[in-house]
């Protein structure tokens, strides 16, 4: 197995799927000549050509709406939004068109569509470009929302998404692109809608995903030095949400902390906590704690921005509160 970056893993998945299936193509802002704003599609334009690596105008509704239409004709578009913050300009097409069409027309319309969007804060881009609005999209039945936290999952989940018959929002995290990990070569598929135990433990359950997996793993290392063994469940998909590994872990530890980068109110942590109370109330030994972003638009100033985002220390103190 090669040790590669998240960026390389995503790029590899796209490349292999495009080689495998001529119906797969990419469309988005700067995906072609430029090579992708985050260099994910570097080299694709020269290899696959302008028809399959399509540079679009800066027009997000046209990108997503166009990808929906192409998917309806049997193609498998991978539409790239330069950042998930621009998804709001295509909100209707994502949640009100793509998510509705299969059901609303009685099953006759099929949309094998992947929307790639990068999100996350911490890069001094100011409030409009630094959001983690994953929970908003996960609210809508009809859409699937996937957000990998490791290079291997990024590759396996993206390949699964491209082969799926359903519309899928694939959320990447900008500060994970350089993260390295072991990634299986060739056809490696991770099923969508399956949570996984990323670190075994017995004292407390940490439920997390995407960038916050990295933060949670670091917190667990520190806690281990103090004799606290945290079990970490990586959700990987927000919809469908696989609670089985979470509940199984919680029944063992009886304590949980949910760590997400988005805002706390109405967020992923709220959902997970509610489900733990609904499904495993008899096992609760302490209130479920939520670690999340401070509820303000993110400031530009580096020190202040970092202060607002969830940190390793926040996870550690939350764990200590529930023990």
């Amino acid at each position: 197995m090669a040790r590669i970056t998240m960026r390389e893993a995503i790029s590899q998945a796209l490349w292999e799927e495009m080689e495998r299936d001529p119906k797969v193509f990419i469309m988005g802002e700067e995906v072609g000549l430029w090579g992708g704003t985050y260099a994910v599609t570097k080299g694709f334009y020269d290899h696959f050509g302008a028809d399959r690596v399509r540079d679009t105008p800066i027009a997000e509704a046209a990108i997503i709406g166009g990808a929906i239409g192409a998917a309806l004709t049997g193609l498998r578009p991978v539409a790239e939004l330069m950042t998930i913050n621009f998804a709001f300009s295509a909100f209707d097409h994502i949640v009100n068109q793509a998510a509705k069409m299969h059901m609303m027309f009685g099953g006759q319309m099929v949309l094998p569509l992947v929307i790639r969007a990068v999100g996350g804060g911490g890069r001094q881009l100011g409030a409009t470009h630094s959001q983690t609005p994953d929970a908003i999209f996960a609210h809508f039945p009809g859409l699937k929302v996937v957000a990998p936290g490791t290079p291997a999952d990024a590759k396996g989940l993206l390949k699964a998404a491209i082969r799926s018959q359903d519309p899928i929002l694939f959320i990447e995290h900008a500060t994970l692109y350089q993260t390295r990990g072991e990634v299986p070569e060739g056809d490696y598929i991770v099923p969508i809608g399956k949570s996984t135990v990323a670190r075994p433990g017995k004292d407390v359950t940490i439920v997390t995903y995407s960038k916050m997996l990295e933060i949670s793993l670091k917190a667990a290392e520190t806690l281990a030095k103090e004799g606290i063994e945290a079990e970490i469940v990586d959700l990987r998909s927000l919809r469908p949400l696989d609670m089985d590994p979470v509940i199984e872990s919680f029944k063992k530890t009886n304590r949980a902390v949910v760590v997400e980068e988005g805002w706390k109110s109405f967020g992923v942590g709220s959902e997970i906590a509610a489900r733990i109370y609904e499904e495993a109330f008899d096992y609760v030994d302490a209130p479920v704690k939520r670690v999340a972003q401070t509820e303000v638009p993110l400031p530009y100033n580096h020190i202040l921005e970092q202060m607002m985002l969830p940190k390793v220390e926040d996870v550690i103190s939350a764990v200590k509160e529930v023990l």
Partner: protein
Amino acid sequence: MEKSDYLNLYHQMVVIRRLEERAAELYQQGKIGGFLHLYIGQEAVSTGLISARRAEDRVITAYRDHGVAINCGLSAKEIVAELLGKATGCSQGMGGSMHMADVKKNYWGGHAIVGAHLPIAAGLALGDLYQNQKAVTLCMFGDGATNIGYFHEALNLSKVWNLPILWVCENNQYGMGTSVERASAVSEIRQKADGFGMKNYQVDGMDVLKVREVAEKLFKEIRAGSGPQFLEVDTYRFRGHSMGDPERYRSTDEVHRWQENDPIGIFHKKLVEMKVAGDAELNHQADLAEQEIAEAVAFAEASPEPSVDVVFSNVYVEN
């Protein structure tokens, strides 16, 4: 055109008229729920346009979609059944009036968010271009849709990528209750296509043969690779925007003036003048349409309600 072609067009227009009249009654009886937008007055538009398409050409429209469905070859039975929310409806009772489709007949709906189907139409055309299919996508929308951002994004993209698409604005003079003059910076809608360097035309939408003639020309050119073109069709809806429209925004005089231009009446007169058919023969077509709709209503009323399983099984393809 053969005589049967003329009679077929006439028949379709009368079927739409009878369908919509019965739909209004069924709505008033409480048998149809939600919103109901009638196509009465605009029958010549989609009848003329779609008579010029080939089977491989895709059709997509907004929420005033029952007539378009008839023209695309859906049966009155499955249309009325959809209005009644029945399992036998074209969208299995899941979509209702505004969401009718039959992809096997290349009818891609029936879309209820103003302008949102225009980018999707561009994508349908992209699908054909990408797969080297010699097909044209016909995208219909109202005058109101030309003021929303989706319209501009979609037209621009279609021109940049030279997509095989015919954009048709059905200018029925009002976006709900707001007249074109009060909502659009230019009252001649076709001028907007100039902003995208797109060839554009205007036609009288009350004359089915004129609509058909220009549509045939445009389909042919687009199929040959001209790229997208734009057609503005002037028309008028004789009824309100939807059921329950107080119609305070227009005078009865104005409505009456347009009703004198009834597209079915015009076509009837023309067919008699051209000696294609006599009054009796045309009235017979109208009787057939009446019967067809009566049968459709009976069929829909006797049809079963959809099973609750359909709700859950169609949220995703892969559960």
